[in-house]
């Protein structure tokens, strides 16, 4: 149908009005520069570290414990520096991290498989739903006697407990994510003729991503804790893992070395949280428009 001139003009006016309104309504990006953002993210952390070190130093000065038990920051950081120079800390950290990555990867696979099965199959949900949460609340250290019986004093025993510690949190993240998909999106998916597997593939799984990533993050925390407990309990000869170094430092009453290893464990935990899981969580939340900065 050819448009008359009047209609042509009317459509053009509508075009302009719509695009004007759109331009007004669409969001304007944050105007803050990158250095300003980096600085505002960093200075509170630096201040917190300075505060922590000051409190530590103050406690030492107060004479609450003798310095061979609780050394001040100075000697601890010298021990840390020495450990870094002679490679022992890097060796230990890389060994421990390798175990963490292997154990966590297995936990991820196990958690996803169990989570998907329980979320999809009603019978499995009734049978295992509360059991999964139960296992999650069980202290992982309680699994070690069994793990040692099953696998002797080996890396397998440690990995077993890491997987048992992390998988339930990951599975729960998957289940909660699938349960909490907004009904509106499910209806929209069904209106697009997505059923069964297709509905899972294109609607339920992506919609559950934010909750699943929280589960992954929690799973990592459980894995890291279980791993360090394991390395302290299951001492394997010739493997200078962080846990073993901690145990050795205690055996030799080498307080600075002990605290230095503890700092390494803390830093690795913080870095993994911030740069792996925190970054993953932020990118997912930004994608979904769930962050404050997106408003």
């Amino acid at each position, binding site marked *: 149908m050819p448009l008359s001139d009047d209609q042509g003009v009317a459509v053009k006016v509508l075009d302009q009005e719509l695009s004007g309104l759109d331009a007004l309504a669409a969001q304007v990006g944050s105007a803050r520069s990158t250095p300003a953002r980096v600085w505002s993210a960093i200075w509170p952390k630096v201040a917190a570290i300075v505060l922590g070190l000051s409190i530590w130093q103050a406690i030492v000065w107060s004479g609450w414990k003798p310095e061979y038990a609780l050394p001040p920051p100075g000697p601890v950081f010298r021990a840390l520096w020495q450990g870094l120079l002679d490679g022992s800390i890097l060796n230990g950290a890389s060994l421990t991290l390798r175990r963490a990555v292997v154990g966590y990867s297995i936990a991820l696979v196990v958690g996803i498989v169990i989570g998907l099965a329980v979320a999809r199959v009603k019978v499995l949900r009734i049978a295992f739903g509360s059991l999964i949460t139960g296992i999650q609340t069980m202290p992982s250290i309680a699994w070690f006697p069994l793990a040692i019986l099953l696998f002797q004093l080996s890396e397998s025993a440690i990995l077993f407990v890491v997987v048992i510690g992390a998988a339930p949190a990951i599975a729960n993240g998957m289940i909660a994510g699938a349960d909490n998909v907004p009904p509106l999106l499910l*209806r929209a998916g069904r*209106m697009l003729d997505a059923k069964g597997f297709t509905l899972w593939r*294109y609607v339920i799984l*992506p919609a559950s991503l934010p909750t699943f990533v929280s589960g992954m993050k929690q799973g990592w925390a459980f894995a890291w804790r279980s791993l360090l407990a394991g390395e302290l309990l299951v001492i394997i000869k010739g493997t200078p893992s962080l846990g073993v170094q901690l145990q050795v430092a205690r055996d030799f009453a080498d307080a600075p070395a002990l605290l230095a290893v503890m700092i390494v464990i803390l830093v690795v935990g913080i870095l993994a949280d911030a740069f792996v899981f925190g970054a993953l969580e932020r990118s997912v939340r930004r994608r979904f428009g769930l962050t404050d900065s*997106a408003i």
Partner: protein
Amino acid sequence: MTLSESELAARPTESSRLGGTVRVRDVSKVFGQRGDTTVALNRISLDVPSGAFVALVGASGCGKSTLLNLIAGLEKPTLGDVTLNGRCALIFQEAALFPWMTVAQNVSLALKLRGVPRRERAGIVAELLETVHLQDFAGHQPHELSGGMRQRVAIARAFAQEAEVLLMDEPFGALDAMTRDLLHDELERLWLDRGFTCVFVTHNVREAVRLADRVEVLTSRPGTIAETFEVPFARPRRIEDPEVAALAGVITTRLRQEVRSHATE
């Protein structure tokens, strides 16, 4: 009772025109089980011919949304038959876009699930976004758009489904008046251009008269059709047209009378 055959024939018919039909026969819908039941719809009948624009108005609780869900096949009627000829798309008050996808990906998914080959999708998506004037926002995430823009993406997605019947459930209810006016113009233009069939649920009588060929007034609890009003005015219309206002006044009076009848119950 609706547009006569000759009127329908007089409207432009092009090969691209899509218009499904809806036929609702003696449909009842009861929610709940034993003892504790609510009759949402009571023996309701409705015919929507190809290319018609029908608005359903009614106070809350009249089962307007239930009726749309029945037509869309999301729910099954307790009694009676619903026949839908042609593909349908349902547009909700909140545009139900997938937040993890861009605007273009949302539209493209509808094509993909319909089996359109990958290499054809990008072109169709671009074309559809242009029809709703959103070509510049293809790469945006839904949360970066305004409510009115999101509804237009939802409409583009409905076109990607090749919907012959658009079922709209108070689609502009959450928008500001200015945006709503523009979207009325836009929807009317798209409807005139593309010739789809539209069933439009609203509680805004002015909006119903502004847009529809026919306005059905629904009673509440249980929902059934109280009266049908034809809207014979020329298009394009505007919401401030005096005849639109006058008919809206008549329908509102009828609606109030209906609401009053529940006062003594």
